[in-house]
């Protein structure tokens, strides 16, 4: 009797423990999803307020209400300016961003490795990289047009110019981050320059490289759309669409295109976060969405 009772109690306490755990988990999910949801609803509410409260019907194209952006912007599939065309230009911009980012990674990595191998390269190159970074892209658009015309190449060039700097800086910082004693260990055992680079400096740099990649991935999307905005030859990308929608006063379409652009940026950022976590979270403390 006594034994049975205690067993029953044990089960009960396990059950109540499970319930408590379940409540805690539910709470943690809620506390993570609620704040952004509430804030999002506030924004939507404010948006409706401006569309219907402040703007009269003639000027409503300045900020069409959310449901019209959904129905006219996203859900009109075919025809000129339909979603099908928008997705096609989204794909075109994705390609430009991908190609530009690949070149930026290649150039950035090689330059950073070069600078890490001899201080003289770092001293020689760094001031010019900072200068390059400081040039507003608008100022070089005419030059790019002179040299490469207004087709796909120019768009990719804009993309590279915008996304190159964070890759170089972060990679270089990462390559220089291996501790002095680690280098001493490799020196003691007569490691060659290449071995040191391959087995010590590059792996040590990975967390910083990924930090740079995630910044540059977002920038490459901006570069692709800005480039497309200025250079209209060939395939139509999101930049061209945005330009057209704004000149035709198609508010809903314009907002839809803007949302698509930012979705592309977020997708690329998440992709690189995912790759980063797969690659280094096993050994590095740097992991997760934010870090």
């Amino acid at each position, binding site marked *: 009797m006594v034994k049975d009772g205690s067993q029953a109690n044990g089960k009960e306490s396990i059950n109540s423990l499970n319930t408590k755990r379940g409540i805690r988990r539910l709470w943690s999910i809620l506390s993570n999803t609620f704040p952004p949801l509430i804030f999002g609803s506030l924004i939507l509410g404010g948006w409706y307020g401006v569309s219907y409260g402040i703007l009269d019907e003639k000027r409503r194209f300045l900020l069409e209400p959310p449901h019209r952006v959904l129905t006219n912007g996203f859900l009109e599939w075919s025809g000129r300016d339909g979603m099908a065309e928008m997705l096609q230009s989204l794909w075109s911009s994705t390609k430009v961003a991908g190609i530009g980012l690949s070149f930026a990674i290649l150039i950035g990595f090689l330059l950073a490795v070069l600078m890490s191998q001899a201080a003289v390269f770092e001293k020689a190159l760094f001031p010019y990289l900072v200068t390059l970074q400081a040039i507003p892209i608008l100022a070089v658009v005419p030059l790019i047009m002179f040299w490469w015309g207004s087709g796909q190449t120019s768009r990719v060039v804009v993309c590279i110019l915008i996304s190159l700097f964070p890759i170089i800086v972060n990679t270089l910082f990462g390559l220089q981050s291996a*501790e002095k*004693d*680690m280098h*001493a*260990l*490799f*020196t*003691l*055992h*007569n*490691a060659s320059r290449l*071995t040191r680079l391959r*087995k*010590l400096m590059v*792996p*040590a740099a*990975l967390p910083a490289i990924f930090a740079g990649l995630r910044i540059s991935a977002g920038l490459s999307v901006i570069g692709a759309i800005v480039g497309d905005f200025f250079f209209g030859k060939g395939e139509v990308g999101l930049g061209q669409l945005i330009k057209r929608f704004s000149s035709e006063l198609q508010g809903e379409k314009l907002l839809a295109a803007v949302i698509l652009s930012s979705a592309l940026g977020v997708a690329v950022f998440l992709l690189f976060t995912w790759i980063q976590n797969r690659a*280094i979270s*096993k*050994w*590095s*403390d740097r992991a997760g969405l934010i870090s």
Partner: protein
Amino acid sequence: MMPDTSSLSVSFDEVGMVFPDGTQALRDVSFSVGSDEFVSVVGPSGCGKSTLLNIASGLLKPTSGSVDISDTSLGYIFQDPTLLPWRTVLRNIELLCELHQIPKAARRERALAAIDLVGLTGFEKHFPKTLSGGMKMRTSLARTLTLYPQVFLFDEPFGSLDEITREKLNDETQLLFQKEGFSGLFITHSIPEAVFLSTKVYVMSDRPGTIIAEFDIPFDYPRLPRQRFEPSFAKICGDVSNALRGTRHG
């Protein structure tokens, strides 16, 4: 050139070191470590003890005097475990063999033997970030053991560990010394650690560091943990401490 196979492993001959910024770290340091000796150097912090090891290993060149080191197979245990965080325990331990281009099968075999020797069996696949300070140091020891060094240089390796872990690693280090037959040069500022491990203890003065006292430690190996509580042990610790106290200014 054939190394001198007489009984000396490392010998310092009037070694002096002045850094480019003018700091004189060492002055006229002369002593030697025999091939079956375990020598500790104790001294106040900042007296140039680590510089001594950097010179012995060839990482630094002395500005005067010379160092003879009879064998090229040198093991260096750093103050930090210096593990590569992206490698597992096993792959970290294989690193030095990799740098010396030892074939894969042989280095795996050596690494596993070393893991066994330092008691890390079962942790082969762990990454350093999941290990305790003591286990990281064991990994570092095992990594060095894979090259069968004749001379072991220790740069205050257990300084950042808690007392219990430290004593445990001291026990194991002297067992390794007895089993593996290397000679050791151990830098520390813990007197009991120096006395417990060594055949001989040198006391270094404040900067510029030089040897000011020398103590032979007569206890047999293997030394048992309870050795630390014997009056004779306490007596030597007291003598070393007195010599060390004489080095401080003021």
